[in-house]
């Protein structure tokens, strides 16, 4: 039987591993869905909410950029979809108040750095922080 195994892993630990019916994510070329027996595929994942459909319901994971690979799994007929993310968290575990505070702080940092003509390391970090905060907030709304 054709099955799909999904792994969402971060450098610190695998975030979610299990049997799934589908995986929905977004690469630079647009949204895509992986079903069992999907063809082999490698690509990137832009910051977005990745959704894993299982027989017990849907799992939503906010992925702050990463990569994915779809290939054959260990057993016969199994398709393995791996999402590699530097930072990722389950949407229902997002701390909204913290994300809100981070957003305000990041915006303040960007405003403070705006007087510099050139791009500074601090402004790049602040923008990345803002992107993360915005993704977290939009994932929860």
């Amino acid at each position, binding site marked *: 039987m054709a099955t799909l195994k999904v792994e969402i892993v971060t450098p610190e630990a695998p975030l979610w591993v299990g049997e799934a019916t589908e995986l929905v994510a977004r690469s630079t070329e647009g949204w895509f869905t992986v079903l069992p027996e999907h063809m082999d595929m490698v690509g990137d994942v832009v910051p977005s909410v990745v959704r894993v459909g299982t027989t017990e319901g849907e799992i939503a994971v906010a992925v702050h950029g990463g990569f994915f*690979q779809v290939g054959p799994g260990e057993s016969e007929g199994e398709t393995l979809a791996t999402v590699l993310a*530097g930072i990722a968290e389950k949407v229902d575990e997002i701390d909204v108040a913290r994300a809100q505070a981070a957003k305000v702080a990041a915006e303040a940092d960007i405003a403070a750095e705006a007087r510099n003509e050139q791009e500074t390391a601090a402004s790049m970090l602040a923008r990345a922080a803002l992107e993360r905060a915005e993704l977290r907030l939009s994932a929860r709304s």
Partner: protein
Amino acid sequence: MAGGQERILRRRIRSVQSTRKITKAMELIAASQISRSQARIVANRPYRNGMRRIIVEAAKGDPAAAAKLLVTPEHVESAIVLVLTGDRGLSGAYNSSALRAGERLVRKLESEGTSARLYSVGKKAGAFYRFRGIELVEGFVGMSDRPTFEDARRIAAAVAAPFVAGEAQQVLLVSTRFLSAASQGVEVEQLLPLTKPAIVEEETEKVLKGYTEFEPEVAQLLQTLAPKALESEIFSALLEGAASFHVSQQRAMAAATDNADELGQNLSRIMNRARQDSITTEIMEIVGGAEALRSGK
């Protein structure tokens, strides 16, 4: 006179015993850290292997685009050497063997006409190069016990910048790899240009079967993938370095505790003999004195 020696010995025994308490405590702490750092290596493995699989996949998908990132130029003008040590000592040969391997590597590079630029992780490496007056471009400290991915990211950014700017053609890493709880060894690896990882070699055999689609194209994908792969490799080196450090420290401290035990035993044996001697002498003196008194009566 004998009493004086006894007192000196007693003082030494006490000092050996208190040192033993310290080494024993350090041994236990290191032992508890081993399992934690080992668990982190295991937790990191899926990410690292996944990263390596994607690189292999990309290299196969478009060899021409991958060649730019994967092939080392014939002549390397300038190389970056990143040496990974711990922040603390008292860990046997952990720091010194990494530093020695680093020195060997630099000498080898120089004999090939390559200038080496040094980066280091760990206070011990920083102190070593400062003491020897060797120029260190950047030394990272305060992360070797419990490295975070953020640390790896900072190091990756620092060593990748000269490579991207074309100032260096190669980035090499000298670190202690954690092969198993019983065996760790210093290894030199090439971080950039990316190397095709050997570990997934057998795994990829079964993947060879068909055509792989790329989203986006390989050339574009590699642009974003390369820095992430570098971060991943540095992070797993940091994790393995931390675990190796704790194993080394535990071993060194266990040996020190054993030594302290032995030293304490020897000292107390000497002390007991000295005490016995002084008692014997005292008895002899009393008996001798009593004899003298009796015969003098």
